């Protein structure tokens, strides 16, 4: 094992590993990694664990520098990292959010069963591929003015809903009702706006996707029913993954420059320049949070538009109304975000800035931020896998609240680099292989599909098993793809 991490890490139990502050001078809190032993071995192959230690240097960090079982090497922060900072003496770091601000996932349920949809899968996937712009050079069909873009930055998904792109019920089933407070268009650059204009209502590319899936296993019937997965095995759902597009990337890029200077100005000593940050209370910190909120809200508006077009496409191909098909939203959750939340620290309620970089919120039953209709069950947690296997629906827990600031993992985590996957799968037609599995796929470039093949990712079932056993999320259902759209 690279670097002999097993000599450094203290085993807490089969799914928890503690990285003591003694590992590196300057760590303010210990690290806590959720993983089983084989997963830990694979994490140890890159610098992800070192990055867990580096995050522990950040001023104001509380509890642990946390790592979810899907962590891998990121920029400054590991992807799959969670860190909470005190508001009075803590910092905010754009690297703790990532370039794709409020990248997230959304799940819609239907009244349809697999056998009704299978005969129309090809036209359905074609329709979705036409109606949801994706891939390189994609432009959204929406044209908004500068003033409207300002409104979108502040109001997020609600802006779309008011214009007929969805319903009030969608907002109820969206994290933070699709907009976080504090967004200020004045803190967003002209360049970010320009990129936003072009890309509102687009899916993106890479690991972003839109899938038509069928439920293949239910682990918690009561929770599944509450979330609208009430028809059991074979029920059709739609699951998609995308973020704030060029708008958010530009906001991150702009503020990395600001933060590099701010870190020097405020004498924050960092083990890695990419942890560049500023005190939450400073002008730089406040400006970043305001711009990040604008980008997060843009992302929620973006996913709202995509959900609308998805509904229209399904209704059109099935020849039935959206209502008849019962295309209701299960949930929408962010997995690249920093949020001001109230948590219990040493038995006292304290407001913290929780960075989730490639980590999903997972609030338990009874929490006031869990939608009323799910209040007795807990917050739905969406964990996408890969396009050849399956994805999961889970639910937040008290344990997550107590240990991880109500957070859990966001996906499978990459196992093979793009190049390695391409080499390993050379000569294999991935689209044909998926078709043989009964999965219909459309992508801008079929040759690139190898990079997103199952072999490139950890088995999300293993990742979810760790969450479930460690208690930081509970399995509800598993869905397998029937149709896949890739950028």
């Amino acid at each position, binding site marked *: 094992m690279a670097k002999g991490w097993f000599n450094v890490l203290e085993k807490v139990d089969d799914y928890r590993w503690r990285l003591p502050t003694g590992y590196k001078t300057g760590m303010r809190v210990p690290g806590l990694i959720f993983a089983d032993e084989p997963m830990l071995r694979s994490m140890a192959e*890159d610098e992800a664990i070192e990055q867990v230690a580096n995050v522990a240097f950040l001023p104001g960090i509380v509890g642990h520098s946390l790592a979810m079982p899907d962590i891998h090497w990121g920029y400054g922060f590991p992807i799959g990292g969670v860190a909470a900072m005190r508001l009075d003496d803590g910092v905010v770091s754009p690297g703790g959010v990532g370039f*794709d601000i409020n990248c997230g996932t959304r799940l819609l349920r239907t009244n349809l069963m697999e056998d009704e949809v299978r005969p129309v899968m090809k036209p359905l996937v074609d329709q979705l591929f036409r109606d949801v712009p994706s891939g*390189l050079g994609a432009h959204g069909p929406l044209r908004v003015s500068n003033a409207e873009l300002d409104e979108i930055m502040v109001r997020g998904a609600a802006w779309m809903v008011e214009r007929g792109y969805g319903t009030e019920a969608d907002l109820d089933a969206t994290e933070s009702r699709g907009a976080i407070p504090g967004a200020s268009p004045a803190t967003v650059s002209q360049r970010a706006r*320009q990129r936003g204009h072009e890309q509102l209502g687009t899916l993106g590319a*890479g*690991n972003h996707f839109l899938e038509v899936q069928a439920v293949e296993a239910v682990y918690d019937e009561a929770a599944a029913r509450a979330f609208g997965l009430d028809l059991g095995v074979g029920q059709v759902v739609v699951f998609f993954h995308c973020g704030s597009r060029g708008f958010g*990337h530009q906001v991150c890029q702009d503020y990395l420059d600001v933060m590099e200077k701010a870190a020097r100005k405020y004498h924050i000593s960092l083990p890695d320049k990419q942890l560049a940050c500023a005190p939450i209370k400073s002008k730089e910190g406040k400006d970043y949070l305001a711009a990040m909120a604008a980008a997060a809200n843009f992302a929620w508006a973006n996913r709202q538009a995509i959900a609308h077009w998805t509904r229209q496409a399904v209704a059109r191909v099935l020849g039935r109304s959206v209502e008849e098909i019962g295309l209701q939203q299960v949930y929408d959750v962010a997995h690249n975000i920093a949020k001001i939340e109230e948590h219990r620290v040493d038995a006292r309620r304290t407001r913290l800035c929780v960075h989730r970089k490639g980590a999903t919120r997972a609030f338990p039953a009874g929490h006031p931020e869990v939608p009323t209709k799910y209040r007795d069950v807990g917050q739905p947690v969406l964990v996408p896998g890969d396009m050849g296997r399956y994805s999961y629906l889970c639910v937040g827990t008290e344990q997550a609240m107590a240990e991880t600031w109500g957070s859990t993992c966001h996906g499978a985590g990459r196992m093979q*680099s*793009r190049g390695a996957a391409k080499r390993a799968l050379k000569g294999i037609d991935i689209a044909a292989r998926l078709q043989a599995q009964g999965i219909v796929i459309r992508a801008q470039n079929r040759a690139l599909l190898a990079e997103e093949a199952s072999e490139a990712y950890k088995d999300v079932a293993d990742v979810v098993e760790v969450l479930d056993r460690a208690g930081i999320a509970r399995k509800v259902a598993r869905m397998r793809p029937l149709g896949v759209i890739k950028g």
Partner: protein
Amino acid sequence: MMEQPPPFEVFDHTADVGIVARGDTLAEAFANAARGMFSLMVDLERVAEREERCIDVQADDPEGLVVHWLSELLFISEVDGLVFRRFDVDALSDTRLAARAFGEPLDIGRHNPQLMIKAVTRHQLQVGREDGGYRVRVIFDI
């Protein structure tokens, strides 16, 4: 005689992709880095030089200059819908770069689109001398 190293090479990084670009001069290495970046996005052989854009960027150091130079090209590419295949770096200091980029509007049918690059990162970014020439190493967020 030693074989000339390629102007740029692509390397893997867990979830992302990087390039190492080389040149006899730093200006050439910067131009090759841009070429490398666009080679990840489209098939450069199929891109014609029908449009020209001028770029002028500043930064505190050569590393910052790499990020600003490539980010500016990404920005123009996204906003104007262009892809570039050739780059002339006309002026370069430690803190400023002036260049021209040549290409044409992105044509999905003709350019064989590849990866979409979200951003130019500072992760393990290197600018330096190597074997009498210059080398730039940069990782992109995909």
